[in-house]
């Protein structure tokens, strides 16, 4: 056990010391720490004002329930596919073969995961001012939220491993887990429908009623998390004890499943550890993280071959082929469909030309994070784009075409759906689709600018803190132009084309960015990885 505690603490210590070599990360962590300290001080600050009219606690219950349901689905899905893991490849190669009890190694894995989960949950402290102002929460409630979220992630992790151990290699058991999951989710929707019928309230009120209902708290994982937090908020010790008891019982059950079979869980976690390792590697190299799950694909004769393109243009056709192979419908992935459903629901309920622009703004916001992971970035991790005897500009444009086509396809679906549900007029939807495409072009341009300026792509933190400023700088002229032209020049019957100035300016900006970075491939260094 001494070796394991040594490993645990030395890794933590070295991780902190290693920050000296990464000043940007150090600054970022200091900033996060500073924000949290300020938030905590704000929380502890005694207020003499007796404020009333706080927001409904059920909003938080609903958020916990929604996130919980999403996590549960994702982790069960992972459990059925690859399983989850507490370990990394170094653990597999060094610890699993060492003369240390597998149970002790499992405990080490559990502690290591708990530590990581707690660290990942600190973002909740960011919300202290909001939670205090809107809901009147104090330290007790915020800590409860923090632990409830950590517990939710941790228990899902264990559940995922448990499901993998239970169902691995047994199709009947897999089908059984799927059935239970679908009955579970279907049951929740059915309950919501029945409440809706009974109470004749709006959809949101129905959902509030459902998560606030006593029976909801008994639903596995999702309900327990809500019950735990609700127990703290309403000072119900019984709720807290029951929910914690449920969490502990499931954890113990899963751990017993792992250790019960003469503690031979190594094989069960090996595959998922390899997948996790490869996922991290892929993420670093800007590749699709699901691509390493090796599935044999039968390539039919008529589907075999790139068949088109010469010189730089072969990148276009290669990308089209790759995309066709990795998704059932060209450019339309699960996220596109999920987003289209969201747009449809929002459009159906809002049904307002002005509010449709809020949908557009939200879509563009998400687009910023998605576009950056285009095929161009993937190409920059391979040596071919640097070595192929064509001009940098041609290669750059060709490798970006598929990235341009993705927002086009998404725009057709999103705004097609919006037009169908009559969330906005057809012409307005058309112009908003063009705006979405133009924003996509700007974001692809920004990818190129990042690579040209920094020689690498920004990680998520940099994207949020620095990338956002740059993005705002680039798109602000378009927004200002659209607003001013709409207010002062555009007749009311032409308001549907209010975004046109923004669209045109974005396209010009994108062209300028590409043109200025046209020698990117000659100037960038190949590193095989981007972060």
């Amino acid at each position, binding site marked *: 056990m001494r070796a394991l505690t040594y490993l645990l603490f030395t890794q933590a210590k070295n991780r902190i010391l290693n920050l000296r070599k990464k000043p940007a990360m150090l600054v970022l962590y200091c900033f996060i720490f500073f924000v949290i300290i300020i938030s905590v001080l704000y929380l502890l600050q005694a207020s003499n004002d007796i404020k009333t009219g706080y927001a409904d606690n059920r909003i938080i219950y609903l958020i916990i329930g929604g996130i919980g349901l999403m996590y549960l689905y994702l982790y069960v899905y992972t459990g059925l596919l690859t399983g989850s893991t507490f370990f990394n490849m170094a653990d597999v190669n060094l610890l699993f073969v060492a003369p240390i009890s597998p149970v002790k190694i499992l405990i080490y894995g559990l502690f290591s995961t708990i530590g990581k989960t707690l660290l990942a949950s600190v973002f909740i402290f960011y919300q202290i001012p909001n939670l205090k102002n809107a809901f009147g929460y104090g330290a007790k409630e915020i800590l409860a939220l923090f632990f409830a979220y950590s517990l939710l992630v941790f228990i899902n992790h264990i559940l995922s491993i448990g499901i993998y151990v239970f169902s691995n290699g047994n199709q009947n058991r897999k089908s059984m887990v799927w059935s239970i999951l679908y009955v579970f989710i279907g049951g929740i929707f059915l309950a919501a429908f029945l409440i809706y019928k009974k109470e004749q309230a709006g959809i949101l009120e129905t959902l509030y009623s459902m998560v606030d209902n006593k029976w909801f708290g008994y639903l596995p994982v999702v309900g327990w998390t809500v019950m735990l937090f609700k127990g703290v908020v309403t000072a119900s010790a019984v709720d807290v004890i029951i929910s914690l008891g449920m969490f502990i019982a499931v954890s113990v059950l899963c751990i017993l499943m792992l250790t019960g079979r003469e503690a031979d869980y190594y094989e069960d976690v090996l595959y998922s550890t390899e997948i996790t390792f490869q996922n991290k590697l892929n993420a670093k190299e800007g590749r699709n993280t699901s691509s390493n799950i090796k599935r044999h694909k039968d390539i039919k004769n008529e589907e075999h071959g*790139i*068949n088109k393109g010469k*010189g730089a243009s*072969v990148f276009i056709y290669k990308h089209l082929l790759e995309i066709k192979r990795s998704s059932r419908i060209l450019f339309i992935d699960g996220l596109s469909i999920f987003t289209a459903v969201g747009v449809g629901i929002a459009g159906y309920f809002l049904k307002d030309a002005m509010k449709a622009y809020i949908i557009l703004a939200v879509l563009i916001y998400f687009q910023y994070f998605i576009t950056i992971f285009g095929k161009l970035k993937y190409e920059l991790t*391979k*040596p*071919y784009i640097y070595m192929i005897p064509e001009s940098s500009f041609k290669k750059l444009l060709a490798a970006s075409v598929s990235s341009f086509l993705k927002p086009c396809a998404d725009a057709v679906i999103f705004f097609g759906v919006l037009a169908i549900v009559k969330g906005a007029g057809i012409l307005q939807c058309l112009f908003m689709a063009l705006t979405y495409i133009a924003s996509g072009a700007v974001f692809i341009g920004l990818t190129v600018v990042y690579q040209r300026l920094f020689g690498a792509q920004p990680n998520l933190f940099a994207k949020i803190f620095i990338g956002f400023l740059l993005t705002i700088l680039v798109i602000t002229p378009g927004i200002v132009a659209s607003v001013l032209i709409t207010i002062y020049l555009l007749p009311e019957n032409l308001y549907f084309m209010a975004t046109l100035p923004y669209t045109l300016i974005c396209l010009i900006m994108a062209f300028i960015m590409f043109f200025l970075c046209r020698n990117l491939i*000659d100037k960038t260094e190949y590193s095989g990885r981007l972060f």
Partner: protein
Amino acid sequence: MLMISNVTKKYGKVTANDKISLFVDAGEISLLLGPNGAGKSTLIKCIAGLLKFTGTIEICGNNNKSLRAKRDMGYIPEVPALYDMLTVWEHMEFIARAYSLSDWKERAEYLLQRFEMDDKKKKLGSELSKGMQQKLSICLGFLPDPKVILFDEPLVGLDPHAIKELKNMIVEQRQEGKAILISTHILDSVDEFWNSVNIMMDGKIVASKKRKDMEEAGEDLEQLFFRITEGAKGEK
């Protein structure tokens, strides 16, 4: 064919290549030997145009970044970089189209056959084992029939048949008048076919010898390598 003059490559404060100069003539196999971290792979990547550097590198008289030079150069990386969603044959097609090659199919078939990959044409990059990936990577490097070929640890991960075939092909390429630069730290793997050797340490070329001169002096590659590398360590 391959001319390197005063090439320096720095990563921040670390100098990976320090004023390196060397020349590989047509029909010559030149070795780049050195312990781990000597800067061999960095130099190969600089020649391939993948890294920025100061100094001059010319391929058949053209700057290595020029399109003409790229057309004349083949690079087989240490770690194969393949596309997950392309089959073996589509990788060959991709290179053929990217280099605007004509009548490439016969050559592609021939290369795949030599490396026993002809029955794997429809396998995706993600389905190939590490060794298979390395073999495909070699085929891709050879497909445009380059005049200057750069190998970075080419024999690592290959099965005995592929090692034999690759060695044969390297010798055949020399006979066809190609200039070949091979970076490796496994001396035995290249002992039988080299013409000149450059030994690198700490980013510098510390010795350059011709095989003929060494044979006349009665010295073999291993002796030279250890005399220089371990001698240098001793001096430190």
